[in-house]
């Protein structure tokens, strides 16, 4: 094949990239899937549109840092702002308290991160032969800018979400600490998802479920591995026939490796967050902008619904930064310019892929 093609098949469907979504907050994607926004526009772009309806997103926590909360908070706020009902479960005694920490969306008159310039700049930086790898992602971002605020908002992490979004029947909370088994949570999820049962017609609404720190040690079901897996299997089957997205975070370091692997296989989208050690001189030398990073996000698996083609990302690890101390952004890791005297080699290139036998930093 002389000409490299951006599309995998020789038949390209005539889907207009600016197809109007059936309702705000839901965007159509390839292969008949619909997307919900994660609440972080960078993450939506990385995942090729967002979280597909009917998928299970699993976030692997780092016990040393609460970064998974950032993902959960934005996910939850995004749903509430778009009037998508939310079910939130956590091991805390009073989960409703967490709602007070949800970020507020920026209104258009506030300053918002100007990503337009950086996108254009990106266009200049990419050498021509690598354009084909970006081809798949570009149509989404171009068409999305106009409808941006109907799908994905920018959130100001310093301002709490307005009360009006939290009132009403939109938010249900549940504590997983005291239930003797998972049946209560299962039933709660089942009832919640019934309202989003998928039919062949137009969708009437979309919902979100956020389960935080699943299998935390304080939960009574913590050591009942097969019950947990059974619950996840059942949840997965319920979500497949619903217009909803479940995001679930769990601490893999506190579970047995095979159990953790089983959970990872059940996920459609698999992410992990890691803390960045403070004052790490080696890292500071290796990466640009190290001081601004608050953590690392890795994308291990991207949901593949209705297709067998895997999404291979150019870079699988991103730095989590707070832009202007307010906005959550994800950036590719960039290797700092090598100092001539230090003599380190370019053995790992900045945009290289994840190595399965990689070191602590895979980028």
């Amino acid at each position: 094949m002389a000409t490299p093609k951006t599309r995998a098949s020789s038949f390209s469907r005539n889907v207009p990239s600016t197809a109007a979504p059936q309702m705000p907050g839901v965007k159509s994607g390839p292969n008949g899937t619909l997307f919900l926004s994660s609440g972080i526009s960078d993450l939506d772009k990385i995942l090729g549109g967002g979280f597909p309806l009917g998928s299970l997103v699993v976030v692997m926590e780092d016990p040393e840092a609460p970064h998974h909360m950032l993902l959960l908070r934005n996910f939850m706020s995004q749903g509430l702002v778009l009037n998508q009902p939310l079910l939130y479960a956590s091991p805390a005694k009073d989960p409703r308290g967490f709602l007070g920490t949800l970020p507020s969306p920026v209104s258009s008159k506030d300053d918002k991160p100007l990503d337009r310039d950086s996108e254009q700049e990106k266009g200049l930086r990419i050498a021509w032969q690598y354009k084909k790898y970006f081809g798949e992602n570009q149509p989404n971002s171009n068409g999305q800018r106009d409808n941006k605020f109907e799908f994905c908002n920018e959130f100001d992490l310093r301002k709490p979400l307005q009360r009006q979004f939290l009132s009403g029947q939109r938010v249900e909370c549940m504590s997983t600490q005291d239930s003797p088994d998972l049946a209560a949570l299962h039933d709660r999820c089942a009832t919640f998802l019934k309202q989003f049962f998928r039919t062949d017609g137009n969708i009437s609404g979309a919902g979100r479920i956020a389960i935080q720190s699943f299998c935390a040690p304080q939960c009574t079901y913590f050591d009942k591995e097969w019950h947990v897996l059974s619950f996840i299997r059942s949840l997965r089957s319920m979500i497949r026939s619903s217009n909803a997205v479940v995001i679930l975070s769990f601490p893999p370091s506190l579970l047995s490796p095979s159990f953790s692997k089983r959970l990872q296989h059940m996920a459609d989208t698999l992410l992990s967050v890691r803390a960045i050690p403070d004052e790490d001189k080696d890292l500071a030398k290796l990466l640009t902008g190290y001081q601004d990073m608050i953590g690392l996000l890795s994308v291990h698996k991207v949901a593949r619904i209705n297709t067998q083609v895997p999404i291979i990302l150019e870079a699988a690890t991103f730095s989590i930064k707070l832009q202007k101390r307010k906005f959550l952004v994800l950036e590719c890791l960039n290797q700092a310019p090598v100092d001539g005297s230090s003599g380190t080699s370019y053995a790992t290139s900045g945009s290289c892929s994840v190595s399965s036998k990689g070191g602590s930093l895979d980028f």
Partner: protein
Amino acid sequence: MDNLLDRALGLDGRGDRWPLLGKVVLVEDCVETGGAFVVHHIIKRFLSPQPAAASNHSLILVAFSQPLSHYDRVLRKLGCNLVAQRDHDRFLFFDMLNLRFPGEEFRDDVKTGSSVLVSLFEKIYNAVRALSAEKNCITIVIDDIALMEVVANGSSDSVLDFLHYCRTLTSEFDCSVVALNHGDIYSTTEKPMLMLNLEYLSNILVRAEPLATGSAVDVHGQLMVFNKGEHDGQGTPGSKVHNFHFRVKENSVDFFYPGGRG
């Protein structure tokens, strides 16, 4: 059309008979590299229109992992219409995804778990018996074994029994059995009995792994195919190991030797 995987599985022959008759194929994968495309490929080769021999091919798909809509869309892009095949009784879909135990799911009831597998096997046995009465060539596909273990509440004995029984079908009715399992789940277990037994049971082992150098857009991973009964050119029985790379596309999968990317 011939490709490296077909050659490794023995599907490139010119005969009318389905070469995997009476054989058990185990596909192993990991989180980084999914192996479902191998199963899709075998399904497509089995069901898609070939010279007249395919008219009596019937496939039973025991799906724990995905709904029918997913398989239907994927296989349709590969050139195989599952819904049409189902209407002609060439394709049976056992929906195990929506299998739900009313309220007993989270109790320590191993018996419930294994009884599910027992009744599942009964269903499969009856279906196979009915199909083979019409002189059909049958393949049973299981996606996937790890989820079957969850359904059985962790009782790997029940799962192993189930698979042993499926194996009896290969000798009794000349079926093929194709199963997908996630090898990395067992890699930390000291004595992964289920895994070892499965690998022993199977005639052909296909393992999908990531490249040692990490993921790449052009090469999605590598396949290792271990065909225990493969005869080499001289006719002496032996086993052969094939290694090659692959790239998964919507309409097909490219297989090529390392560096031979076309």
